[in-house]
C-alpha cells in the first residue's frame, strides 16, 4: 500500500489519505484530471477499471468518490474523493471520460441525480429522468412535491441535442451539440419491444442495414431505489435489492447483508455462510438457464426456453420450500438467513445435481451445435479485453473477452476461498463466447454445490442481532458477484438507524453502455443477438 500512497503523494502533494476499508485519497478538483490520467496510465498504478462514481451531497459541499481497481496489479482497489468546485447551484468537476470509457455514462448518472456538471464530458444529458425534470432527486434538499414533476400521459419532450460544458476563464459555458446529424436516418427501437428484455430504448442510426450509432435511452423503469433507501432502516432496505436484478436476488441480498454485518461488526455462523453460498449458486444456475432460454428465443429458437425453464422451475421449487417464494425471496437477513433450511433441501439439491449434466448435453445438442445458431453468434459483437475493462463490462460478458473478473476468485468473500472451482474464461469475446461462458458456469456452480451439499455444518442459522441496527458514522464499500457481473454497494452512515447514502453500482448499466461501441458497424439484425448475449436486466440498470 505504501508505494501507491507515496506515488500519489509525489504526483499530487495536496492529497490527503484515509484508510477506510479501501484506501481513500482526497484530491482538489483542479488536480483531479491530471491525477486520473496518471492513475490510469502509470505502470506502477494502472487503475484501469473504474468500478463506479458515487455522487455525494454532504450538504456543506458536493462531490464524487471514484472507486477503481487495477486489474494488472492484483486487483487492488482505490477510492478517490473529489469535492466539486463552483456554487451549489452549479457545481462542477472535470470529466474523466477520456481516461475510462465508462465514465461518460457514470458522469451522466451523477449529473442526473446531483446536478454536478462534468466539464468536457461530450454528453451531459440527464440519464434516467426527463429533460424537463425539476430538481436533482438525490440532493438532500430535493423538493419531493409531486406538483413539480407531475405524472403525465402526454409524450415526453424529446431532443436531438445534448450539452457539453467547457470552462472559460473560470466560467462555465454551455454548448449544444447534436446527438445525430440532420442527414442521419434514425430508427427507434423500444421501449416496448420484445427483444429488449424489458423497457429499454435504442435510438439507432443506420446506414442501409449497418449500424452507425446507438443512443441508449434509459429510465423507463427508474424507480428511485437509492433515494427510497435513505428513509428506511437497514433491514427495510434489503427487499429492494431483490427487485433490481431479480435473478440475482439472493446474491445481491447477501452482498448487502455482508456489508451491513461488516459495518456493524456482526459475525455470522458458518452454517449461514454455507446456506448463502448455496443459494447464490442455485440462483446463478437458474439465472443462466433463463438467459439461455430468452437469448435463444430472441434468435428465433423458442423451444429452447421450455428446456431451460424446466431446470429453473426445479430450482425455484427448492427455493420455495425454504424461502416461501418463487422470486423476490428476501431470504438472507442481517445476521444470517431468515429461516432454517427445509428438511428436503439436501435431497432436492442432489436430485438437481443429477440431472444437470444431462441437461447441459441436451442444450448443446439442441442449440450450440446448430449451424444457424453458430452463423448468428460466432464473430458477432466482438469486444476486446481492453475495451471490456475500460467499459466496465464485468460478469460472464467480461470473462468471455478474457478478463478475469470473477470476484469469487479475484477478491474472494464468504467461504469461496475454500471451494474448488474454476473461473470460466474465453478469449473470443463474441456472442458465442458469452453464451458458452454461461453454459460452463452452470457446471462450475454445480461443482460448488456438490462440495457443499453434504457439508452443511450444524449451528444457528441466524445469530442474535440488536433489534435496532445502528451503524457507526463512516463509509463502506462492498462488491458482490451477481449473476451478470459486479454489484458495488457504497454505504455511508451518519451514525443513525438509516443510511445517509446508499449507492448501488449495478453491473447492467455498463453492459448497456457498451452497446453503442460493440454494435458499431454491425448489421441491425445483429443488435438483437448482441443485446441478448450481453444479458442486461433493465430494472437493474435503472434502479
Amino acid at each position: 500500500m505504501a508505494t501507491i500512497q507515496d506515488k500519489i503523494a509525489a504526483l499530487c502533494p495536496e492529497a490527503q489519505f484515509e484508510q477506510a476499508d479501501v484506501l481513500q485519497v482526497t484530491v482538489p478538483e483542479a488536480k483531479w484530471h491530471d491525477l486520473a490520467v496518471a492513475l490510469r496510465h502509470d505502470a506502477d498504478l494502472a487503475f484501469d477499471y473504474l468500478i463506479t462514481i458515487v455522487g455525494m451531497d454532504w450538504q456543506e459541499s458536493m462531490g464524487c468518490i471514484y472507486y477503481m481497481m487495477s486489474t494488472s496489479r492484483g486487483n487492488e482497489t482505490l477510492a478517490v474523493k473529489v469535492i466539486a468546485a463552483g456554487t451549489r447551484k452549479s457545481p462542477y468537476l472535470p470529466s474523466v471520460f477520456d481516461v475510462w470509457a465508462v465514465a461518460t455514462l457514470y458522469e451522466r448518472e451523477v449529473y442526473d441525480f446531483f446536478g454536478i456538471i462534468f466539464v468536457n464530458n461530450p454528453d451531459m444529458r440527464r440519464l434516467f429522468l426527463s429533460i424537463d425534470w425539476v430538481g436533482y432527486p438525490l440532493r438532500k434538499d430535493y423538493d419531493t412535491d409531486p406538483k413539480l414533476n407531475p405524472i403525465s400521459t402526454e409524450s415526453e419532450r424529446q431532443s436531438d441535442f445534448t450539452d457539453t460544458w467547457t470552462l472559460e476563464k473560470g466560467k462555465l459555458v454551455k454548448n449544444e451539440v447534436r446527438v445525430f446529424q440532420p442527414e442521419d436516418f434514425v430508427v427507434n427501437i423500444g421501449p416496448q419491444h420484445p427483444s429488449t428484455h424489458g423497457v429499454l430504448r435504442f435510438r439507432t442510426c443506420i446506414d442501409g442495414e449497418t449500424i452507425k450509432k446507438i443512443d441508449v435511452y434509459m429510465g423507463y423503469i427508474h424507480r428511485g431505489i437509492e433515494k427510497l433507501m435513505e428513509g428506511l432502516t437497514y433491514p427495510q432496505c434489503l427487499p429492494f435489492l431483490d427487485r433490481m436484478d431479480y435473478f440475482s436476488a439472493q446474491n445481491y441480498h447477501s452482498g448487502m447483508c455482508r456489508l451491513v454485518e461488516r459495518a456493524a461488526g456482526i459475525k455470522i455462523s458458518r452454517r449461514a455462510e454455507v446456506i448463502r453460498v448455496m443459494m447464490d449458486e442455485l440462483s446463478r444456475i437458474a439465472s443462466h438457464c433463463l438467459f439461455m432460454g430468452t437469448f435463444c428465443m430472441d434468435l428465433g429458437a423458442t423451444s429452447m426456453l421450455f428446456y431451460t425453464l424446466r431446470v429453473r422451475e426445479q430450482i425455484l421449487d427448492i427455493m420455495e420450500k425454504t424461502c416461501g417464494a418463487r422470486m423476490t425471496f428476501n431470504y438472507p437477513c442481517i445476521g444470517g438467513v431468515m429461516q432454517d433450511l427445509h428438511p428436503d433441501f439436501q435431497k432436492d439439491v442432489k436430485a438437481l445435481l443429477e440431472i444437470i449434466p444431462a441437461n447441459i448435453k441436451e442444450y448443446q445438442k439442441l442449440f450450440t451445435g446448430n449451424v444457424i445458431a453458430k452463423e448468428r453468434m460466432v464473430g458477432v459483437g466482438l469486444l476486446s479485453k481492453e475495451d471490456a475493462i475500460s467499459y466496465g463490462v464485468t460478469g460472464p460478458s467480461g470473462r468471455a473477452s478474457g478478463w478475469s473478473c470473477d470476484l469469487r476468485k479475484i477478491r474472494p468473500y464468504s467461504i469461496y476461498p475454500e471451494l474448488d472451482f474454476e473461473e470460466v474464461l474465453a478469449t473470443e469475446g463474441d456472442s458465442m463466447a458469452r453464451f458458452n461462458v454461461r453454459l460452463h458456469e452452470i457446471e462450475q456452480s454445480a461443482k460448488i454445490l456438490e462440495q457443499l451439499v453434504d457439508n452443511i455444518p450444524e449451528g444457528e442459522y441466524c445469530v442474535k442481532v440488536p433489534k435496532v441496527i445502528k451503524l457507526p458514522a463512516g463509509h463502506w464499500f462492498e462488491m458482490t458477484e451477481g449473476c451478470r457481473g459486479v454489484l458495488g454497494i457504497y454505504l455511508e452512515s451518519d451514525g443513525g438507524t438509516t443510511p445517509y447514502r446508499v449507492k448501488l453500482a449495478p453491473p447492467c448499466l455498463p453492459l448497456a453502455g457498451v452497446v453503442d461501441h460493440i454494435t458499431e458497424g454491425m448489421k441491425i439484425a445483429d443488435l438483437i443477438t448482441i443485446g441478448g448475449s450481453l444479458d442486461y436486466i433493465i430494472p437493474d440498470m435503472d434502479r
Partner: protein
Amino acid sequence: MEVTTKSMPYDAWKDNEYIEKLVKELQDNGTNVIVGSLDKLINWGRSNSLWPLTFATSCCGIEFVSLGAARFDMARFGWEVARSSPRQADFMMVAGTIVNRMVPVFRRLYDQLAEPKYVIACGSCAISGGPFLKSYHVAKGIADIVPVDVYLPGCPPRPEAMIYAIMQLSRKIKVERFFGGVNRQEKQQEFLREHPVAGVND
C-alpha cells in the same frame, strides 16, 4: 345464472357476489332474445381466445414468462398467443412497475390495442406503486392512467394467481353486452373522456 369457465367449478371461485351483481344488472336492463343470444355467441368467442400483449417492465414479467412455459402452460386455456404488437392483442397484463417516463408509452400502447380491450393490473406495483409507493418517479397505480378490469395482488403474483386472474377476466367478458344497455364499453369511454391524451382523443 352461474357464470364460470370450463376448467373451474362455480363454487371454486372466491368472489361470486360481484359476478352475480353484474348478471343482475344485465338482466334488469332486459334483453331481446335475438340480441341476447348474439351477445352470448360473441362473448363465448371472445372469452375463450384471449390474446395477451407481450408487455412487462420488471420482476412480475418474469412470472408471466413462467406462465407461458411448459409447467404452467397457459396454452391450455387459449391464452398462449402473446402478441408483440398491441394491434393484435386483446388484453394487457400490466406486469411491473410503471414509472413517470413509462406512463405516456404505456398509455399509448393501451390506446393502440384494438377494441374490445382489457387490462389486468398485475402485482402490487401496478395496483398502487407497491414497494415503491414513496418514490419520486413511480406512478401510484395504473388506475389513473387506464381503466382496469382485474386487479391481481402479489409481489410478484404466482403463475397460478395469474391464471386465476385471466380466468376472472374471461368470466367478466362472458357477462358483457355489446348491444344496447349500459355496458362496460361505455364506462371505458367515459374514463377515456375524463383522462384525455392530446393528439389521441381530440
